[in-house]
């Protein structure tokens, strides 16, 4: 069962990492930000699965921290990607 | 098995060093420097993991060192960013492109 958790976690991580190519492709700041957001929730999922797989209760707290910071990062990205886009248009 | 991360750490240090040399903008130099620092922290983490003894899964002393290091690295980054901003502002006032 522990092996299953870890493999599922690695699978999700690799999947969402492929999605990171959107950061390269763009074209908008919003697209780049969404790729990062997907990596964020994928990372949270992987962290939860790692917590179960390595039987580390503390990893749950790390996941909780991730969940809170993902929101802060998402807001910061949206606000600044709008700014970056505007200055690019200038 | 934690040696895998040791090799990763060595590569991270190399990557950061490369970025530190080739980038011309200060922001990217700071970012590269942070990657380099993360590599060194990771190396300390591997050493801590190998030092498992006395019923502890890892040697807590290097780990505590890394926690302190992360915060100090952040202070340096913040100071660097503040310097960049001020430089930018001064450039703008002097009418440089």
């Amino acid at each position: 069962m522990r092996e299953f958790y870890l493999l599922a976690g690695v699978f999700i991580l690799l999947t969402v990492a492929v999605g990171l190519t959107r950061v390269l492709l763009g074209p908008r700041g919003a697209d780049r930000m969404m790729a990062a957001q997907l990596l964020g929730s994928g990372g949270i999922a992987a962290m939860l699965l790692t917590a179960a797989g390595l039987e580390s209760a503390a990893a749950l707290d790390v996941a909780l921290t991730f969940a809170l910071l993902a929101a802060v990062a998402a807001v910061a990205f949206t606000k600044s990607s709008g700014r970056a886009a505007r200055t690019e248009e200038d | 098995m934690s040696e895998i991360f040791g090799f990763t750490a060595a590569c991270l240090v190399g990557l950061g060093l490369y970025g530190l040399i080739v980038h011309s903008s200060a922001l990217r130099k700071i970012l590269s420097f942070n990657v380099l620092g993360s590599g060194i922290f990771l190396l300390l983490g591997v050493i801590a993991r190998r030092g498992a003894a006395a019923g502890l899964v890892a040697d807590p002393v290097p780990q505590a060192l890394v926690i302190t290091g992360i915060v100090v690295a952040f202070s340096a980054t913040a100071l660097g960013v503040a310097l960049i901003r001020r430089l930018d502002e001064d450039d703008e006032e002097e009418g440089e492109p």
Partner: protein
Amino acid sequence: MSEALDVFTRIAVSLGAMFFLAGTVGLLRFPDTLSRLHALTKADNLGLGLIVLGLLPQVAWPFGALKLVLVWVLVLAASAASSQLVARKVRGGKDRS
């Protein structure tokens, strides 16, 4: 009983992983920003939701379970709000041009 729960966990976690795969494919293959946003929110909400659901029977009761649910609720709130922000930004950009 615990074997049945294990099977339930396996199914739910696998389904969740599939949603992450689908979300990534959508993010890469869908033609415009708003439909990509749709794909992303499915992965966020359902993928993570299914994994949390699958892990619920396996964690320490009640605080572990409480933390798991809290993680999911926080991600839901963040994803809902930032989707709104992204969508407004995209639409606002179109209206202006």
